[in-house]
């Protein structure tokens, strides 16, 4: 008896979802799209987040947003329009370089809609070059690293004998 009730309930839920999904897909959530793009929310099928290869220069996604393995996607929506974007998202594996990543991990309808909405929301922003800022940060980090290593290893470079000799010659009570 209980099992029947549970079955009925799950059927009902699935049915509801089936009907409501296309309706929701029409209006994607740009915030969720951003999360999917950046990878803070993962794709249902396990595809890699877009940010791994693509940047959106006009939108602040933090220090890691400078990936340049693929082209910058700020102007994607402007260049391809809504249908174009939908087409790309439907089959990202159409691009040869994305094949290995998405052929077996397609995006769901909802994810496509969210991403599309996100691309639409950033289309207006101005494309900026993240490279200069990133280079600055890398140089700074390298310098801090080198200074740290230098500070730790300073004693190693000084030696033992030379300071002894110098102290005796030029310090107190030396023989000159």
């Amino acid at each position, binding site marked *: 008896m209980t099992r029947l009730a549970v079955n009925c309930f799950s059927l009902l839920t699935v049915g509801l979802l089936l009907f409501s999904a296309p309706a929701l897909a029409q209006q994607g959530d740009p915030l969720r799209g951003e999360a999917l793009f950046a990878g803070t929310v993962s794709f249902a099928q396990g595809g890699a987040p877009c940010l791994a290869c693509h940047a959106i220069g006009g939108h602040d996604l933090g220090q890691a947003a400078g990936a340049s393995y693929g082209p910058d996607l700020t102007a994607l929506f402007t260049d391809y329009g809504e249908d174009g974007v939908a087409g790309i998202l439907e089959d990202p594996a159409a691009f040869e370089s994305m094949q290995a990543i998405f052929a077996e991990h397609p995006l769901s309808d909802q994810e496509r809609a969210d991403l599309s909405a996100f691309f639409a929301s950033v289309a207006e922003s101005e494309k900026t070059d993240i490279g200069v800022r990133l280079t600055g940060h890398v140089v700074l980090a390298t310098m801090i690293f080198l200074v740290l290593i230098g500070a730790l290893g300073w004693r190693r470079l000084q030696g033992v*004998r030379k300071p*002894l000799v110098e102290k005796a010659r030029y310090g107190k009570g030396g023989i000159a």
Partner: protein
Amino acid sequence: MNIRAQVSSVFHLDKCIGCHTCSIACKNLWTDRKGVEYMWWNNVETKPGTGYPTKWEDQERYNGGWERSGSQLKLKLGGRAGLIGKIFHNPSLPTMDDYYEPFTYRYGDLTSAPAGDDQPTARAVSMVSGKPMKIEAGPNWDDDLSGSNIYAANDPGVVQLSAEEQQQLFAIEKMVFFHLPRICNHCLNAGCVASCPSGAIYKRGEDGIVLINQDKCRGWRMCVSACPYKKTYYGWASGKSEKCILCYPRQEAGEAPGCFHSCVGRIRFLGVLLYDADRIESVALQDDQNLVAAQREIILDPFDPQVILGAKRSGVPEQILKAAQKSPVYKFVKEWGIALPLHPEFRTLPMLFYVPPLLPVLSMDNQGKQKLADDFFTSLEQARLPMQYLAGLFAGGNAEEVKSVYRKLIAVRLQRRHLSVGDLSADEAAKACTAAELSSEAVNAIYRMTALTRIKERIVVPPMLREQAIEAGMDPEQHKQEMGFGSRRPPKRRW
């Protein structure tokens, strides 16, 4: 009880004349190659002095040896995480200048220079860069009667003495120094073995010789800093670390190690010691003052039936036991108790022992006539070296250990003076024996062993029993067929 055998040695410092023949013998045998020019597996340094490499005894700088942390022993270099943290950049290594920059002379210039008004000279050139250089240091640069206010004054042992004691060391006309020959101590609790990230260093089970496997060594150089005696060295051409091998190939052929064989002063004694390996850790955890006594405690009497039984049970072969009974080292260290380990406070349990130098008596004009047996210890000024200095070197700061040895050495000296010079009464000699707690026979035995023995008595190389060691790992017949071509290494192109 887990009884093991160790080939160990005694250096009698009163006999060392500082001729460096041992160093040269070793150099010609083992380190006459490219990239290892700076290495002296055997070196002789002058004490007081900073030694080779400079101030090697200063573990605040080099972080060698062990220290106690709670009820456990820890490498001063750091724990496992500390070692890995330093694996690419170890700040505790000596620099080339602390060893010395190896040099040679352009001898060719002497014969090939074109005719001219000036005498041709052989300029000093660096063996590293090949360029002319100014020689500023060497492996025994402090060999300057130890008056140097650079090297002698900065000896880590001298620095911790009182101003009065320092003055005593460097006083004009009473200035005093001695030579300290050093090789690898083949320690029971070796720091180098414990520190090696590649597991390339091992202590041979059958004779306790500490070796670096040249196939396994990856040149991390942790052993160089972990050895408090700085007796492992990095080979710059091979990219591997190397150290004294106690001439095991010579010993396996029944010969004395090169430095022992060549020793002009006959200061070196070699023989097997039996020890209880189960008690190594408890010895290493003792207070500094007790380290010498505790280490002497785990060295076992090879004549004791209990020890013989235990040794056989632990797998020490009969022939090694026989060699242990003939060992002069056992007599020096345990029976007579006149040999002490170098810097026991590093807690590696070194198995090379030194008879501390009594040094020649000063002439009466300088010192005034004194009855040695009575007066020697009435005040510290009577001893030529400050007791505290010797205690810092050989007894972890425990001057009583050194005094006990000194009493015995004085007893020997006075008895011989009574017998051969005759200006001392038998009473005086007997009094010295009583003070030293030695029988007249033991005094005579010490004199005989120190002065009259031939090489086979001084250096008792045990049968190395290679066939047994080989049998433990592989069929001896197969070993005979396959060995002799060196170890199998992949060619550069890979297999």
